[in-house]
């Protein structure tokens, strides 16, 4: 019933929603079981370097999906917000750079890190929301570039070029969370939490109104919504996600440096979100998985066919081009297209989800 489960805004979604409900639970159950028992048959490399990375990169891309998909705001500052989260746990918590790090316990350092990340995201959002389209991209890119150069040149707080190493997760419950299996479950847990929160929020008043602001800002103002305020609040919420992703990434690599939030990674987040699809919160995780797989194995694949291994970016670029060309809604859109084609009645050339 629409009262408790209103459909999302994008046209044609209502029909798909029914098939979603019928279809996906089974697929999600299978996925959940596979992910839960993964450590039983996967090695440390797969757990840590493939799935751990997929999960925290997915969370950071999810923060962009939330802004771009529901809010229509393409923000390139999300990786920088993740960087702020990572830097703050290094600065307020424990790292090998003990001349700067304050060494405060995790239960102080992590909340501070998230608060600072949210403040930074809110400020960036406050600057960006007055612009539209290409100008939002430019202003957030400018902030991201400024953050990168600032962290590289500031030695007093950010330790300049080398950044911080030895940033480890707390040994909570006697578990070394940096080990492959605990870290796998840690990142899986937060990926699922962030995914479910975004999914739930998409149909709560805050998320519905955000989609209303995306589709029809003038009407939303005429209904009493503060359009600017709502957009800034969306940036604040997205910053929590990006901050969580950034902290997990910093723990995984045990270090954070300016390059973590350099221009390359900033663009990568956009590529991941677009490859996966901006219409559903599962998209960024699919995108992150594809990206990590490509980045990890493209080198070997290229060498196998006799090409230089350092051209792996070419493969990612080509993959991006193919996906954007064939399906503006990313892999998610591709999947829906295939399903629509399969449901189509070959005689009537009609039916399925296709409009």
């Amino acid at each position, binding site marked *: *019933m*629409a*009262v*408790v489960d*209103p*459909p*999302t*805004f*994008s*046209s*044609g*979604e*209502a029909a798909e929603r029914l098939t979603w409900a019928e279809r996906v639970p089974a697929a999600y159950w299978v996925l959940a079981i596979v992910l839960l028992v993964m450590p039983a048959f996967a090695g440390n490399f797969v757990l840590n370097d493939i799935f751990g990375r997929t999960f925290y990169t997915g969370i950071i891309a999810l923060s962009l999906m939330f802004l771009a998909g529901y809010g229509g705001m393409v923000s390139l500052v999300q990786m920088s917000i993740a960087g702020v989260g990572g830097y703050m746990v290094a600065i307020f918590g424990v790292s090998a750079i003990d001349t700067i790090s304050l060494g405060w316990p995790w239960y102080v350092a992590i909340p501070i890190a998230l608060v600072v990340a949210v403040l930074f995201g809110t400020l960036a959002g406050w600057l960006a929301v007055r612009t539209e389209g290409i100008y939002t991209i430019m202003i957030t890119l400018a902030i991201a570039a400024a953050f990168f150069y600032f962290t590289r040149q500031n030695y007093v707080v950010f330790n300049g070029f080398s950044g911080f190493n030895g940033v480890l997760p707390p040994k909570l419950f006697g578990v070394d969370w940096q080990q492959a299996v605990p870290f796998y479950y840690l990142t899986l847990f937060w990926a699922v939490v962030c995914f479910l929160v975004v999914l*739930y*929020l998409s*149909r*709560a*008043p*805050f998320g*519905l*109104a955000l989609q*209303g602001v995306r*589709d*029809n800002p*003038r*009407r*939303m*103002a*005429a*209904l*009493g*919504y*503060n*359009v600017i305020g*709502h957009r800034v*609040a969306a940036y604040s919420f997205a910053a929590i996600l990006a901050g969580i992703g950034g902290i997990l990434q910093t723990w995984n690599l045990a270090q954070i440096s300016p390059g973590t939030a350099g221009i390359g990674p900033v663009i990568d987040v956009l590529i991941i979100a677009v490859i996966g699809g901006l219409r559903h919160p599962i998209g960024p995780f699919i995108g992150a998985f594809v990206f990590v797989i490509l980045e990890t194995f493209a080198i070997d694949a290229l060498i196998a066919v006799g090409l230089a291994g350092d051209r792996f970016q070419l493969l990612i670029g080509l993959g991006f081009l193919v996906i954007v060309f064939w399906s503006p809604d990313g892999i998610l859109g591709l999947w829906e297209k295939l399903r629509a084609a399969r449901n189509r009645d070959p005689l009537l050339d009609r039916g399925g989800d296709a409009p």
Partner: protein
Amino acid sequence: MNAPTSISERLGATGTANALELRGVSKFFGALAAMEDINLTVRPGERRAVLGSNGAGKTTLFNCVTGDFPSTTGNIRFFGEDITAFPAHERIRRGLRRTYQISLLFTGLSVVDNIYLSSVGVSRSRFSFLRPRRDDALMSAAENLVRVVHLDDVKDTVVAELAYGQQRQLEIAMALAGAPRFILFDEPAAGLSPTERAELIEILMGLPGHMGFIIIEHDMDVALRVAESVTMMHNGRIFKEGKPAEIEEDEEVQALYLGDGSHGHG
């Protein structure tokens, strides 16, 4: 030329604040005056029709009152409060509402969700992270409004699939959400069938007595039925004010407006 005396002043409106009071309001787009030196007073509960040919400045008047576009000069008061500098959402939260000439609806959402979103806009749940419960007060208010505008049969239908007339009715329901004090209707009858027009008149006449409104309407049958007073606009200025009967009989008005063939057109 003296500013015309408004009907409410002639009726001797007493001390209580007027629902809407415009003093010397103008709107310029560059050098072009879309609306110039408008003085308008509407009492609480008053139902006013604004008539005038295309380009007379009627919709510009609405845009300036609701804050869709800021006015260039002048002063706007809403129930005594100076709202001239307020952004649109602040005016709406004070009980002002409007409908749009070309419907601005959320076409991917159901009827009841469109109205729900309208009720949430003026409530404190705007930023709520929690989905509405089945017995949510705003949701039941939305369900009530669905009945008021006769859309019960299609309340869970996605708006894109509604007939044109139903979309116009939804537009009205969205303006009625969340305890409005004063509503601006921008050509609600445009494009409606005769039956739908009759329903529209019934909805407008059925509004609670304290809920005043201004209606822009080309269809004189609708406008003069629901309004107690009429303001004629011409070339961005107020040209005449009076009771419907006076306006209908006024020779200047007939020459300018009623005789120019736009009578009865959408």
